[in-house]
């Protein structure tokens, strides 16, 4: 139980924030598929977003939802294939992969997140700037220990404030006519 409590306190915020934030892109069947297969922010969401962008459909529409589902299902098929081959190839075979490849893999995630963020921000740059500012400030605060009055690892505070803060500010700015 102790282990469970530890992991819950670290990631419980994500249980709420992730479905809420990603649902508009994933669509209803997409959200279900994505959560049942996991690895959402690093694989399912990019697959869904890229598929919709490439097919030229608008997220949140029925067509968007179909394409998103297609994208996510494809990512599942590819991912599971890779993992299955990998697990049966055995750790010995995998560990003998050249160092250069394994080192590079560390950098896939930052490159991925940068690209996805840019992809969404290009359509709404003002919101992108707001989101980035809020989360950089929050992350800086957390790194300097200002958030340590919160239980556990406060990264949940960062994501909650980033997501809901951005929503709140964008809404206010929209009402003032600064964003449309």
């Amino acid at each position, binding site marked *: 139980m102790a282990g469970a409590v530890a992991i819950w306190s670290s990631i419980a915020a994500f249980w709420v924030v992730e479905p809420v934030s990603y649902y*508009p892109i994933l669509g209803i069947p997409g959200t279900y598929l994505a959560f049942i297969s996991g690895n959402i922010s690093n694989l399912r969401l990019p697959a869904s977003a890229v598929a919709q962008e490439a097919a030229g459909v608008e997220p949140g529409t029925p067509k968007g939802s179909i394409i998103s589902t297609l994208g996510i299902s494809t990512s599942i098929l590819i991912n599971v294939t890779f993992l299955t081959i990998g697990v049966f190839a055995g750790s010995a075979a995998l560990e003998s992969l050249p160092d250069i490849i394994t080192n590079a893999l560390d*950098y896939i995630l930052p490159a991925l997140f940068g690209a996805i963020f840019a992809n969404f921000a290009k359509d709404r740059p003002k919101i992108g700037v707001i*989101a980035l500012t809020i989360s950089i400030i929050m992350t800086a605060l957390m790194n300097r220990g200002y958030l340590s009055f919160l239980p556990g690892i406060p990264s949940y505070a960062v994501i909650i404030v980033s997501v809901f803060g951005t929503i709140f500010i964008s809404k206010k700015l929209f009402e003032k006519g600064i964003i449309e």
Partner: protein
Amino acid sequence: MDYLEIANSTPMWIAAGTAVLLVLVEAIIFVRKSIKDGKKMGLKDEQIKTAIKSSAYSSIGPSLAILAGMISLLVTIGGPISWMRLSFIGSVMFELMAAGFGTEAVGVELGSANMSATAYATAVWTMVLGGMGWILFSALFTDKLESLRTKVADGSKKLIPIISSSAMLGAFAYMTSDKILMVDRSTIALAVGAVVMLILMTISDKKDIGWLKEWGLAISMFTGYSINFCF
């Protein structure tokens, strides 16, 4: 009994295999249904093909990264569970942390010589319980998310996409700001990934180059991480 014997035993493979099979079957069912329904809705064949191709190419990079994560898991908690966790509900970024918390809770460091069957079991429980939250929440609340979205937007049609974008951008800003502040090679990877993506997407929009959209994410990721080899 050595915990690795348990971890890699046949019953574990069967249990893990069942979960993975479930996901695979669902993916296949959804693909076929989506194609059928999509055509009924008026989606063109090229759109469907493009969707499949673009997500396939974009899945390769992240799948490799997940594979790398699986290797670390493999060594400590055995094949069946790592395979299962990363195909079913789990997220590579959290599983290692969860497994670590699990073993710590019984006073053992993940991967050390003291790993016992109990520590292993605890690790598994922790990972699964951690993943359950996501599933519970999305299963119970997904249908309400649409009404939530409309409510927050006060019914204003224009506000709805803004709310959606804000949520997305907020979430991904969180993912990126950590790396931005670290100011190291991952920052470079991030920035390059972002810039390349921007350039590619703008070009493909202006000149209507279909294949660029399909390969865009994959190229941006690849450039982002290989840039680090130049220095």
